[in-house]
């Protein structure tokens, strides 16, 4: 009986949290207009969310592309199909690894920082203080961060995939001797703009939305103690990872399922 009672309690807790999260998202989106009036708020957040994530994204993209080049070459050369290396690297990056790995890195780098920042602001009464100064903390603090996360994600994914493709080319034709022309032409002939690039872009938008939402809500919903903030930060990374991978499966099934 204890087990079911526990399960019921957990379920109820999960649902109320989802409800709070939905309201939170609603108020966050309601504040969008304030960004139009004050673009500087957004610009500052683009810096801490986007620019500061650039380095880790670029380096990871380079290495992922290089590894794909190596692994792909060894597998493809067994079939005498080294020329399709470009296709393999680009398809894996553009469809899957670009959006998913960038989003996971983004959750670890920017998402956890956002949660900790908002959580600490709550713990040190900064949000409450703002409210007492008649400033809506959601509009002033949350919305700009949300928009910055949502906009940064596709840019970071673009950076990641582009650098990855170049990294694959570096290893493939630079070290392993795949013909450079074949690398690019096989890629161009088979990567479709709408099916692959646009779908990857949509994925990145969805991931940016979900990671920013989770990170900010966890921060806002923190128990205002140092333990609470640390738990919330962990939850951000874990829940983001689950959501990214689960949504990736659903999106892939929807996008690439037909053909």
């Amino acid at each position, binding site marked *: 009986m204890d087990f079911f009672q526990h399960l019921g309690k957990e379920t109820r807790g999960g649902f109320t949290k989802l409800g709070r999260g939905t309201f939170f998202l609603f108020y966050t989106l309601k504040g969008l207009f304030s960004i139009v009036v004050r673009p500087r708020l957004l*610009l500052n957040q683009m*810096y801490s969310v986007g620019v500061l994530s650039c380095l880790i994204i670029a380096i990871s993209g380079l290495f992922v592309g290089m590894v794909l080049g190596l692994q792909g070459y060894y597998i493809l050369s067994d079939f005498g199909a080294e020329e399709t290396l470009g296709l393999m690297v680009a398809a894996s990056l*553009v469809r899957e690894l670009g959006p998913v790995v960038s989003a996971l890195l983004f959750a670890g780098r920017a998402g956890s920082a956002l949660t900790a920042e908002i959580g600490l602001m709550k713990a040190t009464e900064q949000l409450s203080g703002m409210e007492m100064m008649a400033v809506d903390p959601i509009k002033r603090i949350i919305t700009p961060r949300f928009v910055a996360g949502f906009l940064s994600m596709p*840019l970071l994914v*673009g*950076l990641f995939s582009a650098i990855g*493709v170049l990294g694959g080319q570096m290893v493939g034709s630079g070290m392993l001797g795949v013909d450079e022309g074949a690398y690019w032409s096989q890629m161009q002939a*088979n*990567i479709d*703009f709408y099916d692959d690039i646009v779908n990857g872009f949509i994925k990145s938008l969805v991931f940016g939305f979900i990671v920013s939402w989770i990170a900010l809500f966890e921060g806002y919903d923190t128990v205002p103690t140092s333990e609470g903030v640390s738990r919330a930060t962990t939850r951000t990374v874990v829940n983001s990872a689950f959501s990214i991978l689960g949504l990736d499966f659903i999106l892939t099934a929807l996008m690439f399922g037909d053909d």
Partner: protein
Amino acid sequence: MSQSNTQDTLVGLFVAAGIAGLFFLALQVSNLSSFTEQAGFTVTARFENSGGLKVKSLVSAAGVKVGQVSKITFDPKTFDSVVEMRIFSQYDNIPSDVSASIYTAGLLGEQYIGLGKGSSDEYLKQNSEIEFTNSAIILEKAISQFLFKSAEEKAEEKK
């Protein structure tokens, strides 16, 4: 103030780099550049069997890409596969009596349409139909035919 200026510059660089990456993917990695700029006209061909041909499969003449498949439908009256293909407009002087065959690139590769030779004075234009067609070689069919034949031959030898 100078601190916020560098910040602005960095954000600008970040946005520019991200957009450049996306453009790179769109133009350099995908086929966007190859088919958006190509105007063309549509011709049809009827095949008994179009095999593994797909929309966007290649149409080539003597190994040169001259167009791509735009639509494949089934005609329930004649049991034919009706393939519409888009020929790039610079190839507006292909004789109207060319043959179209479905080939396979490599043993396991993609299937494509190869245009043969023709001698007519008239050229293919919008909505013209290619009359001479060779269907796809279905690998299973070919193998079973071959096995059947060789079995027959062996049986005859024994007699």
